[in-house]
């Protein structure tokens, strides 16, 4: 209806576009400028104070080290990224299934949920050595630690998401003689998506922590191993370069989840 009444106004359209550009510029330029300013302060203070590079290397030196060791960093970033994706995927599968079980079976909910919460209260990093005892020093224990740390947000978001469906819509489905499977696939699942994606974003950041903890303990390869190993030799610039690469890996993986969310929510949003 409103479209029929629309009066074309090129000036208003231009104004809107200009406002959007100004907003976008502000949102991208300001954080970049802030970061550059902080790095400059860091660089200048290190030089002025004459700090030893083992204590705090200047950003320039970190970048140089990063470039010089690019092969080492990439070779070790790959297993970290792959195992993070693995730990995340396992979390989504197991956390999702557990969430569905808890939502659909009152017996499971009453008997399991308090225990799941209790389990969650264990400081997980402290338990990590146990996984090494049970699963050895290979990728299996790193995936297990990652899963252990990252699955809980998926459980919680699945349970709250599956309960988020509009009660009136559920009654409509009843009146249409919809089966439980239909209600799950066509109503509860779409309604749970915003919750699931929130859980997945948190889970992805936890999965990477799990893998790094695993790499600290198993000491074979990966960015966590590089950080620990270089740290023990006071090669602080490499530690920082590895941290930077780790940031990039985390950002890309988180970005992938956010991108998937955008695509899916275009179909299943309002």
């Amino acid at each position, binding site marked *: 209806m409103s479209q029929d009444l629309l009066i074309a106004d090129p000036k208003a359209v231009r104004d809107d576009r200009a406002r959007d550009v100004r907003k976008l510029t502000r949102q991208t330029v300001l954080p970049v400028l802030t970061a550059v300013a902080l790095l400059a302060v860091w660089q200048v203070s290190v030089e002025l104070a004459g700090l030893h590079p083992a204590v705090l290397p200047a950003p320039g030196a970190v970048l140089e080290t990063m470039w010089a060791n690019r092969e080492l960093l990439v070779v070790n970033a790959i297993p970290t990224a792959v195992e993070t994706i693995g730990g995340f995927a396992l979390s989504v599968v197991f956390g999702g299934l557990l969430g569905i079980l808890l939502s659909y079976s009152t017996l499971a909910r009453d008997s399991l949920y308090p225990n799941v919460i209790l389990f969650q209260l264990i400081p997980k990093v402290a338990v990590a050595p146990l996984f090494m005892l049970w699963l050895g020093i290979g990728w299996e224990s790193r995936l297990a630690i990652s899963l252990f740390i990252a699955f809980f947000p998926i459980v919680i978001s699945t349970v709250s998401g599956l309960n988020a469906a509009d009660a009136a819509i559920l*009654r*409509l489905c009843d*009146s249409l003689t919809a089966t439980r499977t239909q209600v799950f696939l066509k109503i509860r699942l779409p309604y749970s998506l915003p919750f699931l994606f929130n859980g997945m974003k948190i889970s992805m950041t936890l999965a990477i922590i799990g893998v790094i903890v695993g790499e600290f303990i198993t000491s074979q390869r990966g960015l966590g191993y590089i950080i620990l190993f270089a740290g023990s030799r006071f090669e602080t610039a490499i530690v920082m370069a590895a941290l930077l690469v780790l940031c990039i890996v985390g950002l890309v993986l988180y970005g992938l989840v956010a991108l998937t969310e955008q695509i899916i929510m275009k179909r299943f949003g309002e």
Partner: protein
Amino acid sequence: MSACSAQSGQAFVRLSKVGKSFRVEGGTIEVLCNISIEVADRQFISILGPSGCGKSTLLMMLAGLEPVSAGSIEIGGQSMRTPRRDVGVIFQDPTLLPWKSALENVLFPIEIFGLPFAKYQARAEALLELVGISDARHRRPRQLSGGMRQRVAICRALIHEPKLLLMDEPFSALDAITRDELNVTLLDIWERHHQTAFFVTHSIREAVFLSDRVVVLGGWPGQVVLDVAIPFARPRDLNIGESVDFNRICGELRRAIAENHARRVAD
């Protein structure tokens, strides 16, 4: 009795001594008792009463969404205990799926029934055309006004050609002008498709305008306190609301409601 109900004397919907009580802490509350109504095939009947008289509960029992506590409900000769596919329900809220377009929402029952979409696509579009929102068929609910959403809900309830149409105060959340419009649209559609229709409302004028027959619920627990035939010829337009007969019937209904309401408040 109107012409259409006189054609078929056979009762299509039969409520026999229907009662409803709810378990509450410390006992039970009886909300409806001894409701007996017979509705002829293709009759349009309104259930009128003040808020909380149990009229929506009665409709939910007719839809098979609430179990009856006493008595029985028969539709087309079969006892009604669980929802059935030959019944269409329009709820107070449009209850549209936010991620589906108007057209997809209209086709939702077809999706649930697992019937071929292709067969019903044209019917869905024709229904949307009939309620006057054909141009908006690809829009999602967020982009529709309240009145347009309820129009989509009407189409959805009719898509599978139900034999019985149940409406639970479908227009009570709308403004008066939109409400009048939708009353006219509803009558227009009903006169074409002619299902048996139950319409729950607390608006006296709406009930009289739409119905062949108006049943007033009142008292505590709710019972039938008045059952009147509405004699106006069809098709009807909003102008009948100005006639003397129309206002006389409205007055009669209003007094019946007020009398029983006063008694209930006094209790």
